[in-house]
């Protein structure tokens, strides 16, 4: 937001945060309802996790991912946030992925010698 600012002129700055955007009550209630439903779905998926086998973890985290998206987009208002703040927050997850990716690659590419790495 380094350029000059003229009140609430949104015509030339698509990234201007709509901080005065007031999310309607109904949207909050719908998102909360979806979050509750997804939580029940998570537990339901766990109940059949033997059938799902190795996909059980992926399903659990995929559902968690959807819940996370809803919390971030609507409760944290990221949907209406400036692009700078969204990039900043997104970078946190990007670097976490880098940490995870390189660590797991390291571990998985090790050889066991007499039962230890």
């Amino acid at each position, binding site marked *: 937001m380094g350029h000059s600012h003229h009140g609430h002129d949104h015509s030339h700055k698509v990234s201007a945060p709509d901080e005065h955007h007031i999310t309607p009550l109904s949207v*909050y209630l719908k998102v909360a309802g979806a979050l509750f439903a997804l939580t029940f779905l998570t*537990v339901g998926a766990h109940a059949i996790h033997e059938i799902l086998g190795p996909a059980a973890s992926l399903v659990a985290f995929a559902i*968690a991912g959807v819940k*996370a998206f809803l919390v971030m987009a609507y409760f944290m208002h990221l949907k209406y946030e400036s692009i700078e703040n969204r990039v900043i927050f997104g970078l*946190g997850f990007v670097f976490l992925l880098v940490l*995870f990716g390189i660590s*797991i690659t390291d571990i998985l590419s090790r050889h066991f010698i007499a039962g230890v790495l």
Partner: protein
Amino acid sequence: MSTSKMINGVPVQEHFRDAHHQFDTAKMGIWLFMVTEILMFGGLFVGYAIFHLLYPEMFAEGAHFLDWKMGFINTLVLIFSSLTMALGIHFIQVNQIKKSVWCLAITIVCGAIFMVIKYFEYTHKFHMGIFPGNLLDLAKLNEHLAHEGLPAIKSTNLGMYFGFYFCMSGLHGIHVLVGMGLITWCLIRTVRGDFNPNYYTGIEGVGIFWHIVDLVWIFLFPLLYLVG
């Protein structure tokens, strides 16, 4: 705050161009802080993933001592508290201060419910001799299991699993307590009349922090209680 001027009900500090600039700056600071939170908890998640990969049987054995129903109720409690937190901010935006106060109060109560359930989970484990890392009392735990007619512990380093469990859930619990304190501060300031539809930066920031706490739990619950 002696270097701020009141503009349309917003105390604007003198080094900012205007209220909008001040709000933007505060928001960016909050998001930067949240990045550090994601990386901090994320680091613990990565550690958990690595050792779960290396010692799957130990993690499976440890996870048996977790009650998914408690975790499930805690998840519902935190999601509900996220809703009331968002509503707390919403009602300030539409100048319904009394409703905002109620929502903030309910959010704090939800946090307390979460901590009470956590307290019961922890004390139950301590009673069985389950402590993190080296503090794990294997003799006491096996004695407790024998008493219940269950087989003894097979893992040789079960303390590592509970090191992860107590560190991750404990760090999250500390964040819940800090969040409750911050929301209480927001509540007091709201009752005092510090906030209005033009100025609610403090609650907005604390709200984002509280949603992060909820976000971490959304991933912690399946990781600890379901996937195990």
